[in-house]
């Protein structure tokens, strides 16, 4: 279990050659081996969704995957959202609608929302609430997160 394996992880379009134990979680590999610390860990057992990233376009809990399972797949984290100084519409909406306080759950919510809207740009309010209820936030009471994602969805469709 502790013998290390060489793998290549593709994070935000860049290949990282890393040497990991088979038991190393994807979250730890993204953070510690690829240096992308925007992905946070909240519970390490798949309940809170703080560590959500996109794996081949689908939101996943990176604490519930091993890094060795993700070779050859496209991994996208919060660091991929902004294009230089240009924020992603979701990021702009989160700022505008006060959808974050401590910011710890924010990268997970942003990636969850990005995955939801990429897969279903016309998602209705009920389905959006249902999908967003998979992640936990302890600060905001969620209302502003829903507002922000809805605003970003409208913005992305019109833009």
């Amino acid at each position, binding site marked *: 279990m502790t013998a290390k394996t060489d793998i290549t992880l593709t994070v935000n379009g860049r290949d990282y050659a890393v040497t990991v134990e088979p038991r190393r979680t994807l979250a730890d590999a993204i953070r510690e081996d690829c240096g992308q610390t925007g*992905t946070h860990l909240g519970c390490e*057992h798949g309940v809170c969704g*703080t560590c959500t990233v996109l794996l081949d376009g689908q939101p996943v809990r990176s604490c519930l995957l091993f890094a060795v399972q993700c070779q050859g797949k496209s991994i996208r984290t*919060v660091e991929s959202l902004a294009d230089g100084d240009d924020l992603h519409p979701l*990021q702009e909406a989160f*700022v505008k609608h006060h959808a974050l306080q401590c910011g710890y*759950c924010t990268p997970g919510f*942003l990636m969850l929302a990005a995955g939801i809207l990429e897969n279903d740009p016309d998602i209705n309010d009920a389905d959006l609430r249902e999908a967003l209820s*998979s992640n936990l936030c302890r600060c905001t009471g969620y209302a502003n997160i829903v507002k922000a994602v809805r605003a970003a969805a409208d913005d992305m469709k019109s833009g």
Partner: protein
Amino acid sequence: MDKVLGKPVERLEDGPLIRGRGRYAGDINFPHQLHMRMVRSPHAHALIKSVDTGEALALPGVFAVWTSADIAELGPVDFRADRASEILKPYRQPVLAKGRVRYVGDPVAAVFAEDPYTAEDAAELVAVDYEELPAITRADQEPGEFDDGLGTEAALLTHTFGDVEAGFAAAHTVIELDLLTGRHSGVPMETRGAIGVYDAAADVLELHGAAKVPHRNRDTLIGMLDLAPGQVHVYESHVGGGFGIRGELYPEDVLVLVAAKRLGRPVKWIEDRMEHLMCANQGREQRHLARIAVDEDGRILAMDDEIFHDQGGYVRTHGSNVANRTMCMLTGLYDVSAFRAVAHFRLTNKTPCATYRAPGRFESTYVREQLIDAIAAELGIDRVAVRRRNLIPADAFPYRLAFDEPHVADLEFDSGDYELLMDKALEAFGWKELQDTLARRREAGEMVGLGIGLFLEEGGRGPSDGARISVDSQGGVEVVTGGASLGQGFETAMAQICADALGVDYKRIRVIHGQTDRIPYGIGAHATRATVLTGGAVHATALTLRAKALDMAAELLQSPADALNIDDGVIGKRDDPGGPTMTLGEVAKRMAPGSKVLGDRPPGLWAEDFFNPAETVFPYGVHLAQVRVDPGTGGITVERFMVAYDVGRAVNPAMVEGQLVGGCLQGLGGALYEEFAYDERGQPLAVTLADYLLPTLGEAPEIECLITEDAPSPLNPLGIKSAGEGGINGVGAAIAGAVNEAIGIPGAVTRLPITPQRLKAILRAAGK
């Protein structure tokens, strides 16, 4: 440019946070760091017979394994300087357990290894031989022995005023309730973390990953480690939520410092979620045997409460503060002339407790408002009318509560119009119209009801905080504070206050907090203090700095200082828009050391000042709830929820609303879902987020928020009253009242959280 104080401007904090560029404890690393993992007790109460570290030490990558014998010289985690209490000292928690463990999770040994996976492997190889002892799991059971000759009732605390016996003797009606508040906690999304670094060249120990009260923790640490203030620096970076429990000094914080110095390597510790749910401070668990005496109109003659306070395995940094705050806030916003509270402050074999958002106030509001509802039910008077009859009237401020106990500080409520806010809230909620609507729904067979909880908050307690503000040669402004940021928007609030006072764009202001090497004193962010206290200091300092800048500019612009104004960082004549101007940056440049224009002035464009409020501010609010009960499942749906709150003056209304709404949902968690339950052997039953049920979006109602500014505080120049804890304060009270009405049984709910099982049992017992 437009003033920003009072505007819902965007937050300065958000830029890095939405880009994934935050720097939380887990993101802080130092070269050659070791990783610490705690070995924790699996028993609630046991003697430690032996600890064998041999197998763990033999694991490749393990650097050291410590037990209490390795840190024999280190005392227990101390109380904060302002909470020293001799009788409680024997109940403090050792950094590593000595001879006995007192809750599941009590740290027994620490492993230091090259990487966190190895450290966790090695921790499992530490063999501890225990002799299990009977566990005390309830504060209302017979006290036992904490240690040789030391009982588990650490203190019997009292708060009294007036003639309680006479009040009860004169009563038309006496109401008695037996109420329980469940064990909850803040459960921030980021677990705790601490990184210790020893700088041998400077002989300084650095603690990274701090929060809430960095300066106070620095002071505790230098006492425990026998060091000078300049030898311990505490650093706060981003913090993933606090809610009172994060940032207090815990055993692990002390241990990473001791280890960093002795092992010669930085030491990093990041808590996992299971540890967090077993070891970080919990709160709320109290039993109240409460009595209230009223006349025939429901006017309160006396209140009497016997409290059993479950402190858990040790007394942590706050001493008995939570039990004391419970008692002194029990009468709340009612005019009560006789009062007695007695608190049995008892140790149990569960996770230690301390302050969780609105400590003592969530509990006491729940008890008080249940008593008021019970009076209304007993006398057949409307529950709003009973409240109205007993509220402290608007012309009675400042209103003083003076307790008989010489060591208990008096409270002086600074300002308020409680009835006005209650009426505004009821109006906004449509309370009157809802009476008929819900009555019709009940007639149609639905179990629906309304609840009301009035609450009093406290904040901005002194004694003092300072700030230093400087302007650089490009006009950038740095505000150095001893405040702390747990995600509440502290930097933005301070920048807004500074911006208007000084006359600059708030986005050009950088706010420093939680760095003990940048400013010698700091109050931190606790007990709803930050905006009042540090904000007051920033305001005072900005005004001093403004005067300094204008004094210099007056000479340079050849104009009296009082004819000048600063707008967007540019100084010019108030009544001459086209006249000569200069920027704050230019003034700063002209004030550099050695400058010929300085004259007798000290060099540099900077100032420091302090704010020393004499008294605490008392904001207040109203919670209103509408719930529907499913008699089949015992499930409760919160159909509507409102918080109304008089904040004195809102620095940033969007941030105030964020605090209130977020607090409400936490309160709904505590009222309906969240509970740290234990079995009879003291084994915790909620050690994952699948057992400890934080509300998700699925449970979250749209929370309506009414912020008023009818009673600004006379105690600070901006009238601010703070907003951090009000959102959670009266939620338990309002929900309990609403459920009682929904099921048609006054006083039925006696225990929070109101889980479906408990509600089903109530309905079954009532034949419903």
